[in-house]
């Protein structure tokens, strides 16, 4: 009898502790979001796709973000892609190609740059907006968060995030499908201060078991807090994104 009561108490304690752990994980995730990207900011990014032979292809982008769900990017280099612009409003994404036509809808799993980064990586929203924390544990000095997508429209169903709990920044994220298959791994490196209270990894590398030997790197520069009018994040503004710089 004592054994049964003991088991019930233990079960009760573990169940009541779970929401508290999830709540603290959610809070940690929100702090990670704020450290990775301010609520409203602009930045320059360089994307480098590296083939197994060592051959590289580089892209230079200007990015603006406002709130949790508005992101736009403008390609500055190479010449072939110059002037292309992408807009993300929540789950909606568009690509504008100068000369060709009006912005066309694109999907999060496609990639406007080729390589391993897809559109949702390039126009990433806050993790806490797209994912719920389903588990939290310790791995050495790191905290491990297990995340589950809030809806089926999110590019990766599950994330496993290794977090430097002191800096509240990720060091590694595994992106997995609903069945647990590893799609890609992101490595966050070179934490540095960009001024204005922004300290974050200046480099994100990725590889994928689906593309063995290929790697992609995203480097950040001139990350700066800035406010924008909502109208900047509209289809009609895409041809004029360059005027924000």
């Amino acid at each position: 009898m004592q054994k049964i009561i003991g088991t019930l108490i233990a079960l009760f304690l573990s169940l009541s502790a779970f929401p508290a752990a999830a709540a603290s994980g959610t809070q940690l995730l929100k702090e990670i979001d704020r450290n990775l990207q301010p609520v409203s900011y602009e930045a320059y990014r360089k994307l480098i796709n590296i083939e197994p032979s060592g051959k590289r292809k580089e892209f230079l982008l200007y990015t603006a973000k406002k709130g949790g769900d508005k992101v736009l990017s403008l390609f500055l280099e190479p010449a072939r892609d110059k002037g292309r612009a992408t807009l993300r409003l929540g789950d909606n994404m568009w690509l504008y190609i100068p000369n060709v036509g009006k912005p066309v809808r694109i999907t999060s799993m496609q990639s406007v740059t080729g390589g391993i980064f897809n559109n949702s990586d390039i126009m990433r929203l806050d993790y806490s907006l797209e994912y719920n924390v389903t588990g939290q544990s310790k791995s050495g000095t790191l905290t491990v968060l297990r995340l589950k997508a809030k809806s089926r429209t999110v590019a990766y169903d599950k994330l496993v995030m290794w977090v430097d709990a002191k800096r509240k920044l990720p060091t590694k994220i595994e992106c997995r499908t609903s069945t647990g298959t590893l799609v890609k791994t992101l490595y966050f490196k070179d934490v540095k201060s960009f001024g204005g209270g922004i300290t974050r990894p200046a480099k994100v590398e990725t590889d994928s078991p689906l593309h063995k030997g290929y790697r992609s790197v995203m480097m950040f520069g001139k990350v700066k807090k800035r406010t924008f009018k909502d109208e900047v994040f509209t289809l009609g503004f895409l041809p004029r994104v360059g005027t924000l710089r």
Partner: protein
Amino acid sequence: MRRWLVGLCLCSVALSPTFGEEEFTFDFSEVEPEAYTYGGYLEFRPALSLPQSDSVLYGLNYPGDEGPETETRYLLRARLEGTYDWDDVHLQLRTNSDLVRSDGGWSSTSSVHEAFASWQVDPYLTVDVGKKLTKWGTGYSWSPVAFLDRPKDPDEPDLPRAGYTLLSADYVKTFPGSLQNVGVTLAVIPRTNHVNSDFGSTRHTNYAGRLHLLWDDTDIDLMALSGGSEPVRYGLDFARNLKTNFEIHGEWSHTPSERRTSVAADGTLRTGDSSVDRVLLGLRYLTPSDVTYILEYQYNGFGFSQANMRDFYTFANEAVDSYTATGDATQLARARLLNRQLYSSRPLGKRYLYLRASQKEPNDILYFTPAVTLQVNMDDSSFSVIPEALYTGYENWELRARIFVLGGSSLSEFGSKPNRARFELMARRFF
């Protein structure tokens, strides 16, 4: 021996990934904005065509003659563009120059595709004046609601086109909630003998307007055109992502009264006014294996029925026969003229199916995209198939090979074409 072992260990450590870390640099001078920008591309496009000597249009080109066994064409294209930003004013220029060497000799064309000034009055309001593409519509292969643009080439819908000279104002406002954006565009398009001379057939000042809504994650546009140079038109389009990898779109335009001319089998013209509807329904789907499908159904109420097209091709055949029998070129000249004026536009028929499938980087071959495009005239079952291979792995180069294969009965749209196949290469260098 010990020194050898130490050396071997050092080598293996040096070759490990940790020591093999690459250096990536980000020079901030690369991102300094400049008031001027310039760029463009140079393109070389050789093509080899295999004639279809028993086709109707081959007969019109080479009546009673043995035409060439193959036809070659070399296109050299220069596309230049530049911008200048001065405070809230943005100036833009895009030009296109083609130099062509074909079996008929040399030819060249040059045109300004866009030349306009854009004044950003505030984040909500923009005023544009000059020659500009308006880019209305959500369709990929065809846009029946693009009232202010020249038609797309269905064989290459992404090809740049020239705009029309206009004055336009765009107003946009965003809202919280399910109605996220509202935009209004008003445009004035003059048509004189020198300005927009191919915009409709008569000189008038034309007006167009568009209401754009992003409502509950769906793009919706309502548009209208009036003024007299072109028939009055109304239209709507929509686009929506149903899933992250699945998008649907559509367009509908209605013309209350539009004049249409067709050719009877004896060569006489039949002209009448009627209301015309044009519809496009499409989807874009990305499979887990990175194949993108674009499937579109086109209904072109202005197009010719299968019977109309048979009548014209019958007349053209008889004109060729008459010329070869008598040497009288009157009917032949008339058939050539009517072909150029009435039977060369696209889409020519009423109902089409357009399918494009492209596979991104198959077998991990980065920057390589094979694709195939199929267009079927659903009324006469004639078709065009275009397999292609695109490689963009060399920085600022685009290399593409395409093969056009046409099929159908002799009195069908694609079966009547003068060539049965065409091989085309393209090398494009951006700068």
